């Protein structure tokens, strides 16, 4: 028998039992669609977070006390505002160094109230982190030296506190202390509820007074280009470690953060895909089951084919191709369903989706593989049938 004849036979057999074929495919369809959708959601999360981290500003080195590990917040920082000068000397530019001390606080204006991240920063924070304003001005050097009670609002904060009026020139209260609004930052969007748009910026000196601290949590230094990041990090860490004997410092770069987040999200995507893969496995068992039923129902047909000259391998090929056709067609329908669902999720839900080219290809490959694995046993059983016995079957 020519191999393509097996595909013709498979098509005929599957069409002859349309409903059964479709129901058998459902397991594979759901499995493949789930894999495609979950991989798209995982990929969407990953690229969104990567964009977000990149949006923090490019080529920035974060200097934090302690040994940096993702997910832990360093506390008890010994860093002082004067370390900005130390870092500026190493970086060679005062414009590229800023410091941050922040805390979650209630910000109010009249009846309106917002729980914001209040960050005390130096006047060049907006340059280092690329935080453009939609109106007003940013904090000035004078604001920082005089501990002025002025504030730049993030987009969400401004929209909530001053829904119907221009915030610039108005007064807000942070932790009960009045601040004059001097500027509003441009909205930058969010990933998983984490956003710069929830922040309000005040002079670092005023923040220290407000929070009752005389330290800053971190220094942020912008490298002139990516190739300098490594050397700059080492110089900063060693300078600070000789300044504060016995304290360890870490230089964290965006690529490290990206790498860590990427690893976590890749793992998450893999776990999601594996869970979806289980339903593909269950679908495969269903295919195997139906193929066994088919072999039993068609025992006489198999006997007849053998009597007419079909070899064992012809019969095995016929049933194997039938199983693979079931799962491959199911796989294609599942891919279509998965792509459609991914697009719908991306468009109509807060979850971002990003369809990697390889995920439909992989899903199709896996569904064909499932057909082969779960089709082999029924096909071999069909191939081994003795023609005399098979022809005698009712």
């Amino acid at each position, binding site marked *: *028998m*020519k191999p393509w*004849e097996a595909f013709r036979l498979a098509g*005929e057999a599957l069409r*002859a039992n349309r409903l059964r074929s479709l129901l058998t495919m459902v397991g594979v369809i759901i499995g493949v669609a789930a894999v495609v959708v979950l991989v798209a959601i995982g990929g969407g999360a990953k690229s969104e977070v990567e964009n977000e981290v990149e949006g923090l500003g490019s080529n920035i080195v974060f200097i934090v006390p302690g040994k940096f590990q993702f997910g832990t917040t360093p506390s008890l920082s010994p860093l002082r505002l004067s370390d900005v000068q130390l870092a500026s000397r190493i970086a060679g530019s005062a414009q590229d160094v800023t410091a941050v001390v922040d805390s979650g606080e209630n910000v109010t204006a009249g009846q309106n109230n917002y729980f914001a991240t209040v960050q005390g920063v130096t006047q060049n924070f907006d340059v280092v982190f690329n935080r453009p304003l939609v109106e007003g001005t940013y904090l000035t050097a004078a604001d920082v030296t005089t501990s002025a009670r002025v504030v730049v609002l993030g987009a969400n904060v401004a929209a909530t506190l001053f829904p119907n009026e221009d915030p610039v020139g108005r007064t807000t209260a942070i932790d009960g202390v009045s601040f004059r609004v001097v500027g509003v930052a441009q909205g930058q969007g969010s990933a998983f509820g984490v956003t710069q748009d929830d922040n309000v910026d005040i002079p670092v000196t005023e923040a220290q007074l407000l929070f009752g601290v005389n330290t800053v949590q971190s220094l942020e230094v912008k490298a002139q280009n990516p190739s300098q990041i490594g050397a700059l990090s080492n110089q900063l860490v060693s300078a600070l470690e000789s300044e504060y004997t016995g304290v360890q410092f870490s230089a964290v770069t965006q690529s490290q953060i990206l790498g860590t987040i990427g690893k976590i999200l890749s793992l998450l995507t893999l776990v999601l895909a594996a869970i979806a893969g289980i339903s593909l496995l269950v679908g495969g068992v269903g295919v195997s089951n139906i193929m066994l039923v088919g072999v039993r129902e068609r025992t*006489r*047909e198999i006997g*007849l*084919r*053998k*009597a*007419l*000259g*079909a*070899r*064992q*391998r*012809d019969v095995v090929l016929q049933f194997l191709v039938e199983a693979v056709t079931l799962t491959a067609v199911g796989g294609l329908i599942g891919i279509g369903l998965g792509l459609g669902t991914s697009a719908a999720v991306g468009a109509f839900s807060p979850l971002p989706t990003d369809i990697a080219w390889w995920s439909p290809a992989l899903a199709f490959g896996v569904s064909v593989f499932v057909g082969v694995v779960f089709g082999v046993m029924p096909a071999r059983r069909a191939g081994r049938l*003795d*023609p*005399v*016995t098979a*022809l*005698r079957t009712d």
Partner: protein
Amino acid sequence: MSGPTRTLRRYAIEAVDVRRSYSMDGMTVEALRGVSIGIAEGEYVAVTGPSGSGKSTLMHLLGALDRPTTGRMLIGGKDTATLDDAGLAKVRGAEIGFVFQAFQLLARTTARDNVALPLVYRGVGKAERRRRAVAALEAVGLGHRLTHRPTQLSGGEQQRVAIARALVGEPRLVLADEPTGNLDSANGREVLNVLERLNRERGVAVVLVTHDAEVAARATRLIRMHDGLVVSDTEKGAESVVERGGESGGAGGVAGGAENSMGNGVGNDVDDAAETRT
């Protein structure tokens, strides 16, 4: 092309001291106990005998559906005892055409594609398959029923489709197992007429297994079986009984009158239906 012969005849198929035994619940049952027969090309042979006489087993061996336990089974010069499953399948496809009592047509397939089926396994292309199937259907008088499905045909027509299928591969031998068993007498006669005409016109050998004495009487040669042995083998026209093969200990072609039932070695009453296979 024909196998080695011990007589002047050219044999299409020859069994030489063929035995076939089965294991059944740990017991060995001998269905054939030494049978030697030769079927000449173009011959028209009926095989009769009671249930359990071994005629079905003999038919399976003649049709290369099965291999003998001992002895030689020569089909087109090939000893099927030495062939593997793929080799047997090839012999079936090339040398044998089957006609079954229950027709065995594929229900959802047209008459034409049913007839073309054996050619699929010989690697014949679709257009050529159809052309030959149409010719075969015309030869059995069903040229007007090409795209009908079995359920749209009468029993007699279905069996004629099956005969067309048996002939489409131009086999050496057509094996018909109770071909009229599921038909009324008029349809049965029609089917036999077709079979006999093709036997005459094309020279294809026909072996017909039947219980029906009337059907058996139409053949030119009659082989009777009992208890796994050939008990008589007579040719019509000649009153003489032709002796065949049987030079080895088998009680194969022992000469005898038409009613001579040798019955040597009472043996087991083998029931075909009880044979177990794996």
